[in-house]
């Protein structure tokens, strides 16, 4: 196999996505920038006026910002977990989805923590967390865990990018801007794809793939502890950490499937992202939905059966004020994906994507139901307080900033896949190289 020729072929195949910005892409980027600008205005409004412009009050001091934070960090955790497993076990079809998963991992870990900053009453004193940190606070643990996770994920993502940067650097026919070529040259770190370099890179990427799984589990466990180490009804639970991990995986796999669908459609990558990949991801989603359903049932059943006074208040709130949200999050959000993914005949690309959308929406609502109703029904019953202090309803500022988070995620994703191919070219070459070696080693009759 002529490696250089193959590299040129792959660059030629993926270069249109890097070289041209179609009208559709420009409109898409324009819309995202517009949403981000509105969000920036909302941020200024909140910064000038304080939390009074949000729905967060005396009792419900954590609203949809923290829900978005948990949601994005969960997606990142899930991405790290799946990406790590794909790399560690050298899954044959990893090339089709690994870069999508890695980008989701890092970008959601950048966007997620921004939401926690919006929750803070005095953003101007944020540096106190680093100047006067107290190690016994779960918030400090969370900061350490998330920052370590972010660094680990960045290094991992970069390691997987290096061989592709080198391929793009070495290709003379690629028509991209000068700065982009210069960036490829710098970021490739003089990687020449020698056997020694390749082996070293594979070894370190494999080590990092295990490390990011561990880091992600630690980060998400600590996040769950922020809730479960309090006495609040609905939060004080020993299964919260594994429950959060399963929920994170559930939503993350959902987002990966949705991204796979969008990218396949947009870049016409039907050759690379095939039905078999959707079915494989769909089966992971099925397993996660069963586990998530089991944990959710255990959690609420124990609270209902034990009949503690504050748990009764919480369940009353869930089944009255949040009835439809509860039904969607915990019934539709779990059962619909199970039904679609369980029966083989329902497993089409569109239906699997639909199941993923339902799972993601259900999961977001599930996070909402964990945070808000608990704060509305605290440990000791509230008396004689203003309705708006107890009953949370998000304002336009919160919705706008939430949309901005999603828009920023999509914008960064779009810009990154305009910078490096969404399918790792080096991964395809490595796979073909391995296949060739494997075929050489096999006796002829065994080769089909």
């Amino acid at each position, binding site marked *: 196999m002529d490696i250089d020729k193959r590299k040129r072929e792959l660059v030629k195949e993926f270069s249109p996505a890097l070289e041209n910005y179609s009208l559709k892409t420009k409109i898409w980027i324009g819309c995202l920038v517009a949403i981000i600008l509105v969000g920036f205005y909302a941020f200024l409004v909140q910064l000038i006026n304080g939390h009074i412009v949000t729905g967060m009050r005396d009792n419900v*001091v954590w609203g949809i910002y923290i829900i978005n934070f948990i949601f994005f960090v969960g997606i990142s955790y899930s991405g790290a977990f799946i990406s790590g497993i794909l790399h560690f076990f050298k899954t044959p079809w990893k090339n089709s989805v690994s870069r999508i998963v890695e980008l989701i991992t890092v970008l959601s870990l950048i966007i997620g923590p921004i939401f926690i900053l919006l929750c803070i009453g005095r953003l101007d004193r944020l540096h106190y967390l680093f100047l006067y940190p107290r190690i016994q606070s779960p918030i400090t643990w969370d900061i350490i865990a998330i920052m370590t996770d972010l660094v680990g994920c960045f290094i991992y993502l970069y390691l997987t990018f290096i061989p592709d940067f080198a391929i793009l650097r070495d290709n003379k026919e690629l028509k991209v801007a000068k700065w982009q070529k210069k960036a490829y040259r710098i970021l490739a770190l003089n990687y020449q794809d020698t056997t020694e370099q390749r082996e070293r890179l594979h070894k370190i990427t494999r080590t990092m793939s295990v490390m990011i799984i561990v880091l992600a589990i630690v980060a998400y466990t600590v996040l769950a502890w922020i809730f479960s180490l309090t006495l609040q009804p609905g939060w004080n639970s020993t299964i919260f950490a594994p429950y959060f991990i399963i929920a994170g995986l559930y939503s993350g796999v959902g987002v990966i499937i949705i991204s796979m669908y969008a990218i396949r459609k947009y870049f016409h990558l039907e050759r690379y992202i095939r039905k078999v990949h959707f079915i494989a991801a769909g089966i992971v989603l099925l397993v996660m939905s069963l586990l998530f359903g089991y944990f959710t049932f255990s959690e609420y059943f124990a609270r209902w059966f034990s009949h503690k006074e504050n748990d009764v208040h919480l369940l009353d709130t869930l089944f009255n004020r949040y009835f439809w949200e509860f039904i969607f999050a915990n019934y539709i959000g779990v059962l619909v994906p199970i039904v679609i993914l369980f029966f083989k005949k329902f497993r089409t690309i569109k239906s699997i994507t639909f199941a993923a959308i339902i799972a993601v929406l259900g999961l977001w609502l599930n996070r909402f139901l964990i945070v808000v109703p608990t704060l509305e029904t605290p440990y000791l019953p509230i008396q004689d307080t203003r309705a708006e202090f107890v009953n949370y309803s998000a304002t336009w500022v919160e919705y706008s900033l939430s949309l901005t988070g999603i828009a920023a995620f999509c914008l960064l994703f779009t810009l990154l896949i305009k910078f490096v191919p969404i399918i790792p070219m080096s991964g395809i070459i490595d796979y073909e190289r391995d296949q060739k070696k494997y075929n050489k080693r096999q006796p002829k009759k065994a080769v089909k």
Partner: protein
Amino acid sequence: MRYAMVIDTLKCVGCSDCVVACQTENDVPIGYCRDWITETVNGAYPSIELELKSERCNHCENAPCVRCCPTGASHQLNNGIVLVTGDECIGCGACIESCPYDARYQHPDGYVDKCTFCHHRLEKGQLPACVSVCPTKCMYFGDLDNPNSEVSELLKKRKYKTLAPEAGTKPHVYYLI
């Protein structure tokens, strides 16, 4: 020294004077409060009784709010009083969530605020504002480490309870029953 407050639920009439005094003394923003009145109906018909009591931060010996504060803004003095240094608080809300008594709130200026047992008045030798204005004199304040203090004597003589004892926070606000 261990400061404690004792409230006689049999004498409290729920007039909310303590709430108004606190809001005035501590410049509490409108709509918020550091102390409040609760009404609980105990027993079963026909032998029912209404219990009125003034609630606030319990200045717990084992304070979860102090433990979870990431910057040390929430802290405990040697005399047992739990305080929040407004200038050091980042307003993350972790202490609000960890308090089983819901005694804290986020001030419109972003930091977290709560009852201080009127620490500034104690330094001048005065009683907390709520105690000093109570028209039925149902509130008592003093040092639990002094066996002859009014609060120690009352807790020796009378039956009392604390709020949410199962939380293990060891509160320093006692209710005579």
